[in-house]
């Protein structure tokens, strides 16, 4: 039995529900629930772009765009960014209006680990749409002193 198999079986044997990552995803699910309430989140319309490989998690450029006509009656109200692997999954929330013209935003965020990042768009008709992107982080944010 190699070391990895041993560690795994030990974890199973001890009955721990285990990987820390699972707990973090649960946190993110909670964060998402706080944003959307009991509404359904559909997939699509939201495109999130982050580099697939990030050398330094302290400053990661991300671009989010939502398909929307951005008219007075049909526009994007808000876009929320949730990072599943961060100690605090909420990263940032943008509040737009019909006067934004386009629902495209670029910013720089921190990533604590290799993970999936979700972007949730809140439309003016009350519906929620989601897009996500996964990335590999070699040096995590909040690691250094």
């Amino acid at each position, binding site marked *: 039995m190699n070391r990895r198999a041993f560690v795994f079986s030990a974890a199973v044997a001890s009955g721990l529900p285990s990987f820390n990552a699972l707990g973090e995803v649960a946190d993110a699910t909670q964060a998402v629930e706080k944003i959307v309430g009991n509404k359904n989140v559909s997939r699509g319309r939201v495109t999130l772009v982050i580099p697939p490989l990030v050398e330094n998690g302290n400053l990661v450029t991300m671009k989010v765009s939502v398909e929307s006509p951005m008219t007075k009656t049909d526009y994007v109200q808000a876009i929320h960014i949730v990072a599943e692997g961060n100690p605090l999954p909420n*990263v*940032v929330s*943008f509040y737009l*209006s019909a006067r*934004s013209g386009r629902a495209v935003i670029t*910013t720089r965020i921190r990533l604590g680990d290799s993970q999936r990042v979700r972007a949730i768009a809140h439309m003016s008709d009350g519906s929620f749409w989601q897009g996500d992107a996964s990335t590999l982080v070699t040096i995590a944010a*909040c690691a250094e*002193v």
Partner: protein
Amino acid sequence: MGKTSRTLVTMPASAKKGDIIEIRIIVQHDMESGFRHTETGQRVPRDIIRDFLCTYNDIEVFRVELHPGMGANPMIIFTTVATESGTLEFKWTGDDGYASSTTSQLLVT
């Protein structure tokens, strides 16, 4: 007076009516996440910018809620429709009485 810091706003000085203009904002701030520790193991307290607001002739057009997951020196690129000539005001507020603001003029033809 609370804390303040340098800000930088890049946007066109003029635009045609109905054009979508791109606004790029950067503000100097460490965005101390509250998750870091010093060498002696003490937690460094959280100190971040919490809100950003952009108003166009006193009407809110864009607002952001920031959390510790935002990178240091928060940079955001967003857009707005040029509706009329006037003033765009940019305001940041944060922990420990932090506040910064700046304005830009836009000429709409």
